[in-house]
């Protein structure tokens, strides 16, 4: 037996020492003869291997069957994927899924870019609380910055403006009737020509007829600005001059109605010549 040689980093072996070590290695090898198995060992191994192989059920192990059968490996892979896929996908969706924005309650439409058809249906919905019908298209006599400045005086002015608008609307409707159109238009034209009945006129000396003409003028021209306070004061003065039970003239009744909305007691004869009833 010959050794493969000394290590390179050691002192070079002399031929004599190399021979001594080779002889010692051979001697060591020869001193260990191969042992023998006890009798029956190989038969026992033979039986253990081949008899088990013949009874595959007893010999069956998952690992061995997976090594031998590729379909077992495929089935095991599918099973593993099915078991792992659900939790993995859940965690993945939590990590990279879209964040759901919190819904904020409000009065604006949730989807501002609705098609026009849907926008129309929203506008027509009675639940939106649109008060345009009750006001007949009349806007408050206030700027946008004063939208919520609802002082009692402002509310009163708004009520007066609304009632004047309502009267104007009914005037417009009545003027559309053929039998009244010519006479009303002619009367309105005459009223417009009278400068003293314009809004800046002096109402302290105005007569009942002047008040009536002013009322019809405002209705015909659609001037819905809040009338002057002096006009209402004059209407109250004229009313107080009337005796009990006397009919209230139309001009007085109209402005009192615009002022406080109350219907006048009595037969209200003055309303007879009016083209509308409040």
């Amino acid at each position, binding site marked *: 037996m010959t*050794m493969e040689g000394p290590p390179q980093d050691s002192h070079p072996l002399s031929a004599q020492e190399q021979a001594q070590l080779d002889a010692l290695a051979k001697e060591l090898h020869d001193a*260990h003869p*191969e042992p023998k198995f006890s009798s029956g060992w190989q038969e026992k191994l033979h039986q*253990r*291997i081949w008899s088990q192989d013949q009874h595959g059920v007893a010999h069956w192990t998952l690992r061995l069957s997976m090594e031998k059968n590729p379909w077992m490996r495929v089935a095991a892979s599918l099973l593993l994927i099915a078991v792992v896929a659900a939790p993995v996908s859940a965690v993945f969706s939590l990590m990279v899924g879209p964040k759901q924005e919190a819904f904020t309650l409000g009065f604006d439409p949730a989807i501002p870019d609705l098609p026009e058809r849907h926008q129309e249906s929203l506008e027509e919905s009675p639940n939106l609380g649109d008060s345009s019908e009750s006001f007949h298209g009349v806007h408050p006599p206030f700027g946008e910055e004063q939208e919520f400045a609802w002082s009692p005086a402002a509310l009163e002015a708004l009520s007066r403006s609304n009632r004047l608008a309502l009267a104007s609307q009914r005037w417009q409707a009545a003027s559309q009737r053929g039998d009244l159109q010519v006479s009303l238009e002619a009367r309105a034209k005459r009223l417009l020509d009278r400068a003293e009945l314009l809004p800046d006129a002096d109402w302290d000396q105005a007569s009942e007829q002047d008040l009536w003409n002013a009322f019809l003028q405002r209705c015909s021209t659609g001037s819905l600005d809040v009338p002057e306070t002096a006009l209402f004061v004059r209407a109250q003065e004229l009313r107080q001059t009337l005796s009990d039970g006397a009919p209230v003239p139309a001009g007085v009744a109209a402005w009192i109605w615009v002022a406080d909305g109350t219907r006048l007691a009595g037969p209200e004869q003055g309303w007879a010549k009016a083209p509308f009833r409040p």
Partner: protein
Amino acid sequence: MSGPSVDLLEAARNGNEGAFDALVTAMGPRLLGYFLRQGASHALAEDLCQHVFLRILQALPRYRPSGRWEAYCLRIARNLWIDHHRKRGRFQVVQESSEEADPGPGPDEQLAVEDRAAKLRELLAKQEDSTRELLELAVLQQLPYKDVSLILEIPVGTVKSRVYYALRKLREQIHNPEHFA
């Protein structure tokens, strides 16, 4: 590769009982000697040999005859021995090893009655585990240093130097047994 022919291995892989028996006959005694010299009792060594061949039989479909057949078998045997070592505990193994290597009477009387071979066996049994395993593979099993380095997972140069120093130490122990007693 060396050892059994490729045809024999192929026949064993295909389930030829005779071919596998031939493999067992060729390699079995060497494996038995390996386990005995590692300190196993004869019964334990035989049982471990059966386990080695069962593992070889299971691994035959994946075996590629690219290396040395003996080294392949001895690597399986070494892994089995390490597993057994871990399960049973080192103390018990060392005890068994002491029983096997027990020279009986005192060393002086033993040297007087035993021949040189017995003295070598005794000295080898007294070596450290790593040295005994190295000499087992490189000298007794006569594996090339390359295969020994693969089994022990150390560089080839380290195998060479360790074998060299192990033999020198063994030689000194033979010549001066009192110094190492």
